[in-house]
């Protein structure tokens, strides 16, 4: 590892970090604006051109707010909980490849922060750490709404993590690797080779599980505002509340990126060989990744205003009695199919 190599790593980390932050801001704006359009309203349109500076104004407002710690709260845990949730949320994107590769100064640079051979495990492990943040925030607040929200949330997250983990197994069976680059390489070429066409059942299970994992409607029972006020972050204010918000949106971005990587060929441009085009190919691959991701981010908002919220028993029934057996059957079918074709 030389100095130049380290500088490249630093630049990549900073670019990805900044891109995540900007996407979060864009997503907060888009969420309010698109929601408003879907309901025949205008949404925020006063701060800056078309209201584009609204997220920045919100951020500054968070700074100026009073930081409250309720009496009887478990102080160290109460303060640390947002950090426990936010740090993994900002780190997960590191292993996702967002483009092919470019050549600068005679060395090939992969458009990915960290190329680890256990990519999927890394993502699943970090998303599991986020559960600690939620349950600790709910428990330490000394508020009944927070406690109930935290409990519900942790049960929901661990239940859907199973379905999600099992849906991914069939993808690993096809690619034979946990490395996200190998999984993308496995889907290269003609767009019918994308996993969404090979594994439609796994895709549906994964997508539903992702909505539950990111606490989005129709599974946002953790902060069901009509019954739980705000869920696990009821007692949080100021920047600590902003950190929960940030983590939630960062998780959505990673989830969208992961869906694209696992099922839609990642940065693959349909019917095009990126490596033959040099720099142009790399730019096209990044654009294709961003476009696919933007679609899934939009889908988050679209689904939010399309489906009503599940009841808690319905949520648990769907996770344990529908998605989990389906995912097991899917693994059996995929393994069986691969065995049959190999036997011929």
């Amino acid at each position, binding site marked *: *590892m030389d100095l130049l190599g380290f500088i490249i790593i630093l630049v990549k980390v900073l670019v990805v970090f900044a891109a995540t932050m900007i996407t979060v801001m864009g997503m907060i704006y888009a969420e309010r604006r698109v929601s408003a359009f879907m309901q025949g309203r205008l949404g925020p349109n006063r701060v800056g051109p078309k209201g584009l500076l609204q997220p920045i104004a919100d951020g500054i407002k968070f700074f100026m707010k009073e930081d409250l710690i309720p009496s009887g709260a478990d102080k160290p845990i109460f303060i640390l909980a947002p950090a426990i949730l936010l740090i993994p949320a900002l780190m997960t994107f590191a292993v996702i490849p967002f483009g092919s590769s470019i050549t600068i100064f005679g060395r090939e640079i992969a458009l990915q922060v960290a190329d680890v051979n256990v990519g999927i495990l890394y993502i699943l492990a970090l998303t599991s750490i986020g559960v600690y943040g939620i349950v600790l925030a709910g428990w330490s*607040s000394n508020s*009944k*709404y927070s406690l109930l929200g935290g409990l519900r949330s942790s049960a929901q997250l661990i239940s859907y993590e199973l379905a999600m983990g099992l849906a991914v*197994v069939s993808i690993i069976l096809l690619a*034979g690797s946990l490395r996200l680059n190998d999984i993308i390489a496995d889907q290269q070429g003609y767009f019918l080779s994308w996993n969404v066409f090979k594994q439609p059942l796994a895709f549906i299970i994964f997508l539903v599980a992702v909505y539950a994992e990111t606490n989005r409607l129709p599974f946002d029972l953790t902060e069901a505002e009509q019954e739980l*006020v705000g869920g696990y972050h009821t007692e949080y204010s100021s920047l600590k509340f902003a950190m929960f918000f940030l983590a939630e949106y960062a998780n959505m971005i990673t989830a969208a990126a992961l869906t694209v990587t696992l099922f839609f060929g990642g940065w693959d441009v349909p019917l095009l060989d990126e490596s033959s085009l040099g720099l142009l190919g790399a730019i096209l691959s990044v654009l294709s990744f961003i476009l696919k991701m933007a679609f899934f981010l939009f889908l988050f908002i679209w689904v939010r205003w399309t489906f009503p919220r599940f009841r808690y028993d319905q949520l648990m029934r769907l996770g344990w009695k529908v998605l989990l057996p389906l995912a097991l059957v899917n693994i059996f079918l995929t*393994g069986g199919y691969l065995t049959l074709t190999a036997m011929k």
Partner: protein
Amino acid sequence: MAENYLPILVIFVLAAGFAFVSLIITHLVGPRVTNAVKMMPYESGVDQVGKTRIRFSIRFFLIALLFIIFDIEIVFLYPWAVVFKDFLSAGSFIFFEMVVFLAILAFGFIYVWRNGALEWE
């Protein structure tokens, strides 16, 4: 090999730095006017009734236990899935091996289901 993990360390430092700077700033900036009533945990505007750390439904505990069983199952499935294609050339043993493993688990799953551990009514 370990070199591949260096960027993760870098991004961890950055993310942790961001989080802790935010936590420190929020303690320094902003007004601070406190009184006993304001610091009360929110409970729809009335005084707190009873303690917060009450007993909660056993179902949450059950779900946590079941989660561990099935999560370990997934942990076993991942390495199997990674080497699956390599071992297929040596015959279909690797497939039927996992069928037996999954069948045992499916049996346990049906047992749990029939005993009503998954009911929330």
